[in-house]
């Protein structure tokens, strides 16, 4: 059986992280599982954990008044669920719901933030790994907002 530090260090988010740092952040980690339909987190609640997905599929959803929730992204093995834990006020901006059985590493956000604050080199490493995820989500949002597959009237 793998110990938690090894699982954390093998996850793509922390892959190739300095082993001392890896051991340090692993102190904030524990294994969790979610059955289909269970929520990892709900919009507006405290962002007190981040989830490194090891197995399964998770839907990120926004509630639309009077309509069913809209899923704007699915996450899979190797992805990180949740970025709201990084910045105040540390509240989730959307729901995360397990579509299939999902196994993940839950990292205590208070614990990780404190370790990042205490050691800026670790904090910088974590931010460097977060930024590409944020950039990728920003680009995806741009495409979704532009509705590129829409059907505009065209002159012919």
């Amino acid at each position: 059986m793998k110990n938690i530090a090894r699982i954390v260090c093998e996850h793509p988010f922390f892959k190739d992280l300095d082993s001392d740092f890896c051991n340090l952040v692993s102190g904030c980690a524990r294994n969790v599982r979610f059955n289909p339909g269970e929520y990892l987190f709900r919009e507006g609640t405290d962002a007190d954990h981040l989830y490194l997905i090891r197995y399964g599929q998770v839907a990120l959803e926004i509630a639309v008044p009077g309509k069913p929730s809209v899923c704007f992204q699915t996450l899979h093995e190797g992805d990180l669920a949740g970025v709201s834990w990084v910045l105040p006020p540390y509240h989730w901006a959307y729901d995360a719901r397990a579509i299939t059985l999902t196994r993940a590493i839950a990292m205590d956000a208070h614990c990780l933030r404190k370790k990042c604050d205490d050691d800026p080199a670790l904090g910088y490493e974590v931010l460097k790994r977060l930024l590409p995820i944020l950039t990728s989500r920003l680009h995806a949002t741009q495409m979704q907002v532009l509705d590129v597959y829409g059907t505009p009237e065209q002159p012919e």
Partner: protein
Amino acid sequence: MISDDLMVPEPVRVLRRQQELETIWTLELEPGPAGNRPCLPGQFNMLYVFGVGEVPISLSGDTGQTETLVHTVRAVGPVSRKLAALKPRDTVGLRGPFGVGWPITEGEGADLLIVAGGLGLAPLRPAIYHVLRHRERYGRVILLYGTRSPGDILYSAQLEAWSKRPDIEVYITVDHADSDWQGMVGVVPALVPTLGFDPEDTLAMVCGPEIMMRFTVNALRGAGVEDGAIYLSMERNMKCALGHCGHCQFGATFVCKDGPVLSFDRVRGLLNLKEF
């Protein structure tokens, strides 16, 4: 050659018509007297609705068979709306085929990454038919398809059938979905870094809305695919289809004659130019 005069449309009959999505229809046309001429995946025909106008429409069927010409049309303007409304036994004017198609010969021996967005799957479908018919000539074959929502998936039955084959990897993603959808949600370029392909041995064929193609090209280049190994099918306002009128001129390139399929290194500086 369908006619001695490439500007004169030849009347052909509609054999079958099938609704694919709310505004998208597939027409099967008789190939006409010159129906044994070769059509290549990625080429297009000019279809003329008599008394209304003429539009370029890519071949979307199996170009390996010559019994019918298949075109998938989105009704977005006065001509395409009339075209999509044609019934079996109606007559349409046909000129073509025109243009340079997908690099199906250049891609032999390589892995193929086929990326389609929305209706962009239609011009790529003939290439997929060809590749699957000659599967032994290619390495790994991956099809990425992105569209707006689960209800907007084009050729859904065909995609499902392909996804069951062991010799092609099919990934479908949608921009948004409700909770009934069990598949992937997200934009198609975001799938590129997750595939684990060998960029030095990969040829990419991309077709979709231009913004989607730009983001996809960025993802492909980020993954290490060479500019010359990325092929795009460009859509421009093609009129004569012979490179004479200049309506589809794209820098020094005439999309109708030099394209519509062009390698990215030929259009690199032009793809993000503003146009009015």
